[in-house]
């Protein structure tokens, strides 16, 4: 198999990009730590968050799943909420460049699709670099997320009050950091803020997962804001 992180000219991915990918994977591992700890203190066996980490490989849905079960919700409700949150992978799959490959490799490529890998792939300019960044980040997360969860499960069985460590602030911080660069564009920023405000407004009334999808209702605003920007 051709090395994933070499371009046809034999040039490797440059240092800064490799470092960014490594740091994101490390951060995902640290968030995995909080996930494993939360799961174990909620009454799950240590292997459950680890296995779910490998098989589902989508942080927010796993947090939600564990949270709903821990709050006494039914497994069906946890399943539906998880699927709802992961529904964003469909638009992701439409937006992600052609990096997945075919056949069995394509299936693994699809499994590696997540918030981080999509952002890294979109941010590169050449197709080969998009592919290398996507796969390197994806495989790194496939390792770091479950390993982090296992370490967190260990931590959770020792430390009772994981909230005191502030671990719950990690996941939103990672998502925010991933979204910030795109928000430099003014029409996009206004649209995203409106969508987020809408999601927050309906959160008290709707099942978990649905508010995030409802943020898409702000999409027409983007066209309006782009026009306004063009006029000025």
């Amino acid at each position: 198999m051709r090395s994933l992180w070499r371009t046809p000219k034999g040039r490797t991915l440059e240092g800064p990009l490799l470092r960014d990918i490594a740091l994101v994977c490390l951060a995902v591992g640290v968030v995995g730590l909080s996930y494993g700890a939360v799961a174990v203190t909620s009454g799950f066996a240590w292997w459950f968050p680890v296995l779910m980490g490998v098989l589902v490989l989508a942080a927010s849905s796993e947090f939600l799943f564990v949270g709903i079960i821990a709050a006494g919700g039914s497994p069906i409700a946890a399943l539906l909420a998880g699927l709802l949150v992961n529904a964003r992978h469909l638009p992701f799959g439409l937006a992600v460049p052609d990096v997945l490959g075919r056949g069995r490799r394509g299936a693994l490529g699809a499994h590696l699709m997540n918030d981080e890998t999509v952002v890294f792939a979109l941010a590169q300019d050449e197709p080969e670099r998009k592919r290398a960044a996507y796969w390197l980040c994806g495989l790194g997360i496939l390792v770091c997320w479950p390993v982090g969860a296992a370490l967190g499960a260990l931590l959770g069985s020792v430390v009772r009050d994981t909230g005191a460590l502030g671990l719950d602030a990690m996941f939103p911080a990672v998502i925010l950091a991933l979204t910030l660069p795109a928000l430099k564009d003014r029409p996009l920023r206004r649209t995203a803020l409106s969508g987020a405000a809408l999601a927050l407004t309906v959160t008290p009334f709707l099942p978990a997962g649905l508010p995030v999808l409802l943020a898409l209702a702000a999409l027409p605003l983007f066209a309006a804001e782009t026009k306004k920007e063009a006029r000025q």
Partner: protein
Amino acid sequence: MSAAVPLPPTLAAMLALAAGTFLLRLSGPALRARITLPERAGKLLEVSAVLLLAALAATSALTEDHVFTGPARPLGVLTGGVFAWRRAPFLVVVLAAAGTTALLRLAGVR
């Protein structure tokens, strides 16, 4: 919450979530192989991805079980966001967020 989780139904739901998520991931590229999208539609899809991520960040930073979490978590996330804005490495962002939240809770802020 320390009572053991009822395993078989929870495990079944988890496996179903894994299968369903995989199908969601597969369907995007599969659909795209069949239809070619105009450039404008591609741009709108990128915008929707950003919209979903921003809403996910906001709701997971500010709410828990449909209500406000209390100020400790959002202030931690905000601190992480300031570091991210100043282009600090991801690990610094994550640790700053958790550290701020932990310190606030130590000081009695929920």
